[in-house]
């Protein structure tokens, strides 16, 4: 297998990487790095820690890639590693899914009211059950396609759609409860 596999399916890239092709593993890294950072962010609530977690996820994947039999499920396999790595990190920090604590990275446009609004949204997201939070963060972190989300979370596209709708409905309810309903965003 030569470099032509760079644009191929996950299964083809995994097969080439399992035969020692580092460039194929590189293509998988390029393809899945950001979704894995998003998934880790959903667990850890901190972007820098999420970046660190992603580095470790790919290290584990690189070491264990030869054990992967179902090559089409690479994304889901990586997602599983990510959950394990983040759990371990959380255990070390003795905390569970904290609220994101990085106001400097959030677009506030310099308005305190807007910052309050973004904080309310993030609070609502982090109140969701883990599975829904993962979906929401992956969808809005970097605008990943439904297909990519399906691969990493091992869900059908229909399930992704359904759960996204439910999660958004729940967020809207939580925002309304906290006084940040739709009318607060019109301006």
């Amino acid at each position: 297998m030569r470099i032509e596999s760079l644009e191929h399916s996950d299964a083809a890239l995994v097969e080439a990487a399992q035969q020692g092709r580092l460039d194929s593993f590189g293509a998988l890294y390029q393809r899945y790095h950001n979704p894995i950072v998003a998934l880790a962010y959903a667990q850890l609530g901190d972007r820098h820690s999420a970046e660190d977690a992603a580095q470790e996820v790919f290290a584990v994947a690189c070491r264990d890639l030869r054990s992967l039999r179902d090559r089409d499920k690479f994304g889901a396999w990586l997602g599983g590693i990510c959950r394990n790595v983040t759990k371990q990190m959380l255990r070390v920090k003795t905390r569970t899914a904290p609220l994101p604590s990085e106001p400097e990275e959030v677009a506030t446009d310099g308005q305190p009211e807007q910052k309050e609004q973004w904080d309310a949204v993030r609070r609502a997201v982090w109140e969701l059950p883990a599975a829904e939070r993962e979906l929401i963060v992956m969808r809005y972190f970097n605008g990943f396609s439904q297909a990519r989300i399906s691969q990493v979370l091992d869900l059908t596209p229909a399930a992704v759609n359904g759960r996204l709708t439910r999660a958004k409905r729940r967020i809207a309810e939580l925002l309304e409860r906290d006084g940040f309903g739709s009318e607060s965003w019109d301006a």
Partner: protein
Amino acid sequence: MGRVNDHKWLDQALNKAIHSDDTQPDFEKWKASHPEAVEMLTSRTPQTQRPPVIRRMIMNATLVKLAAAAVIVVAVVLGITQLTRNSPEGTMPTTQTVAQETFTGPTTHTFADGSTVQLAQGASIRTYAQVGKRGFEHIAGQIDVTVAKGKGEFIVTTPYGEVKALGTQFKMEMVDGTDANTKEQVKLLAVEVAEGVVEVRNAKGVQTLRKMQNAVVAMDSAPYDFNQDEKLPAELRGRIAAMVKAFETGDKAAWAANFNMGYVYRLAKGEVQYDPSLFGGSAEDAERLKQTVAQVSSPEQMRQLFLGTINITGPVEVYVRSVELSPDGNHARAECITRRSENHIVVTKPQWHNFDGGWWQIDD
């Protein structure tokens, strides 16, 4: 509250609160910080990919066991016979592997077949694990390769594609950095042939290069050589080549010669109207030009003034990543990676227009 999907406000709110577009995958950096994981992936011989459960089922069949035993006996007998008959080099299996070696510049490595690779500071390569396979993996930086002739194909693999050579000398450079102005991540491979023929290939396309030709390969793009881009008029290709050469040689006068100084002079003197397709700056820039050169009395004086403002200090590498031609075929815009030093990369978008009887550069 109505259907969630009816409310764009929630999408916007979630985007604002969660969105992040500053996460950039950097595989080279990851590789450098996880050598042990990379080693595990690349150094071991591939395991059998057959699912164990099926292998067990097959091996449990009595007939298969007997057949396997017979094959082993025959193989052992044949192996002993061959070993006693042949010279050592004749018995080398083609799939045998060896430990890979990594070399980092500045250094020169000579391969068993006599081919050499010269690594610049910061460059890195790794040998293949497969015995008998000619070539190596190019990991980073600038390298000069001289391939021993008449010994079969020689392949250099890179994350951008592979470079196949048959008796030749060529230079490869992997650029990996950020634009000094926009902070855009810039990654590409440049291949330049000094002698012989080289084929640059990836999933998007193939480009064959001969002496003094070069190609640029960006990630997920076909290898590109503007000199072989038949969509571009020959005169335009000449202009682009002249710009690249002027940068490479640090020749300000050669660079300035690509601009239509007569037109710029007429524009500065108000003899022609500002036209954005003929002058790279804005209308305000054109006004400022008029004020700045009010005392200039000839195109030659204008050229001298222009030369004094050019900031080309010493040789600069320029890689032309792409050239787009307008639908009417009279305007072209390129995307170039200009590398002033190892850590100073700038993406430029020079433009050319066909007017006054020829192709002229109008913006740098």
